[in-house]
């Protein structure tokens, strides 16, 4: 019985400690951020804040939510996420259901879709296409180009394939159409798969920053992630040379922390509910016998 050997006990103790550390390592940076956002400027510039707020105050949040640029960017992000996820899921569930069936030309169509995963036009041609379609500076530039994702399609097709054929045949005999079968049988039964893919698309839209910078010529139209990129990353790049002098840049640290934290909050909130789905979703989508 290996459980009782001294060697295994020693290993177990170290293993527990190591795993708890690994878990904390993934979470403490965010806690640090939260603590900073709730701390006073003096405490931050004195490097006194670790994982607990020092000089507790909510000024940074007040300033963040009074910043019209931040609020506008947040609104853009919300609209884009809702709109983008709806469009993507509509396209993907329709195609995913169809492609989980056998029909003439099915394989050719599947390869036509999968090829987009293997080869792409790249940055410049995509930019020129979006510009020439007149989408630049509109929300559609953020929503339409990425609406279809071959990887998500494969996940959904695999999911739909796990639903027993007999269910569908029975429904056919009862006179149900394809569309009724899709909405009444397939959608409810493949909820884990649909939830997984929706989560991926939502998080993708929420986190996506580069297309905002690329397609919005005016910073006031940026979605939240692009706004943050300019505030948090680009401003730091400029300050890098004088990062030791803890003057102006440091005093803004609590506001930056608050902005990052607020932008991450939706993901942290939605994540525990969908986690049970995505583990199942990934495994079913990836592992196939």
């Amino acid at each position, binding site marked *: 019985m*290996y459980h009782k*050997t001294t060697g*295994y006990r020693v290993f177990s103790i170290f*293993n*527990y400690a190591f*795993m*708890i550390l*690994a878990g904390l390592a993934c*979470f403490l*940076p965010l806690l*640090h*951020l939260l603590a*900073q956002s709730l701390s006073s400027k003096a405490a931050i510039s004195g*490097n006194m804040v670790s994982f607990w707020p020092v000089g507790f105050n909510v000024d940074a949040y007040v300033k963040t939510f009074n910043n019209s640029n931040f609020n506008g960017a947040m609104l853009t992000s919300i609209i884009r996420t809702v709109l983008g996820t709806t469009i993507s899921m*509509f396209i993907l569930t*329709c*195609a995913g*259901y*169809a*492609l989980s069936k056998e029909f003439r030309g*099915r394989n050719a169509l*599947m390869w036509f879709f999968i090829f987009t995963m*293997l080869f*792409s*036009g*790249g*940055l*410049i*041609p*995509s930019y*020129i*296409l979006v510009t020439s379609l007149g989408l630049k500076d509109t929300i559609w530039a953020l929503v*339409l180009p990425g609406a*279809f994702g071959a990887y998500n399609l494969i996940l959904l097709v*695999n999911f739909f394939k796990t639903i027993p054929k007999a269910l569908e045949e029975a429904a056919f005999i009862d006179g149900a159409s394809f*569309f009724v079968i*899709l909405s009444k049988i397939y959608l409810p039964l493949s909820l884990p798969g649909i939830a997984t893919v929706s989560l991926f698309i939502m998080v993708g839209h929420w*986190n*996506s920053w580069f297309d905002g910078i*690329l397609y919005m010529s005016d910073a006031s139209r940026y979605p939240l*992630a692009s706004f*943050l990129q300019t505030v*948090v*990353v680009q401003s730091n*790049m400029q300050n890098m040379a004088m990062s*030791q002098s803890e003057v102006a840049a440091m005093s803004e*640290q609590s506001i*930056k922390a608050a902005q*990052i934290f607020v*932008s*991450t909050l939706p*993901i*942290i909130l939605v*994540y525990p509910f969908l*986690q049970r789905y995505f*583990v199942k979703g990934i*495994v079913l989508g*990836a*592992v*196939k016998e």
Partner: protein
Amino acid sequence: MGTVTSAKKVKTKISRRSPWKTEIKKSWPLYVLCLPAFVFVCIFSYGPMVGLVMAFQDYKPWLGISGSRWIGLANFERIFQYDEATQAIVNTLVIAVSKIIVGIIVPIIMAILLSEIRNIGIKKSVQTLVYLPHFLSWVTVAGLMIDILGLDGGVNQILTWMFGSDPIYFLGDPDLFRYTVVVSDVWKSFGFGMIVYLATIAGINPSYYEAAEIDGATRRQQIRYVTLPSMLPMIIVISTLSLGNILDAGFDQVFNLYNPLVYSTGDIIDTYVYRSSLLNGQYGFGTAVGLFKSGISLILIVVSYRLAYKYANYKIF
């Protein structure tokens, strides 16, 4: 309704149309369902591929594709003449290969170690926490890293406290930048990479372990002779498939972490394309570098899928 459709079916049978047409008649809803995806793919995925002809042009935005001068392969020749471009290719390979190797080994080890945790509460909490960074954007992570890895950030404070060393400039030192990139990538993605391995370990038949135990195998031997061999097919699939990413060093990450100080070791193909084309207006050249990358990636992906199919019987759909 029912009689109408059956009447139609009889009619098609009698008129002996070609099987294609019967097929389409029978499964027309399936084609209709694929239509939106088809339209989107044609416009937004295949559309830009038309624009790839710019790689063979001296593209000028005001002249457009039809008006710009054709210059053959000159843009591609320039890739190997510009030191910056060849440097970006080398950096991409070094960073991507390191990421692939570390990114495969760490999740395997972590999955095995986590599966040794018997306390369900701790196991679930650790799992939940380690998946989390995957869902943060690189902008957020970069914001965290700039703060934590700064000269007076948390990491340097710990290092100074432990070793009394001088503060290290992680994001501004060309010698360290690649390590920073690889380590932060592992931090962000190992939890997510673990999912499939954990599922594989959970699926191992417990009687194997019982048999091994009766034969007197220690836990280490059980891991070596039962757990690892059972994980092998999955390891092979994931390793071969990652071959296709050899030219993908992670634009989002590098773009948010790098700065002119570390271009020599940190500039990758994608960031170079962005700077040389959109910032400096060399559209044709940028497209050529992008096409060079996509072309080689395509070959690698096809090869890797073939290998995965041959050695692990893996099919994408």
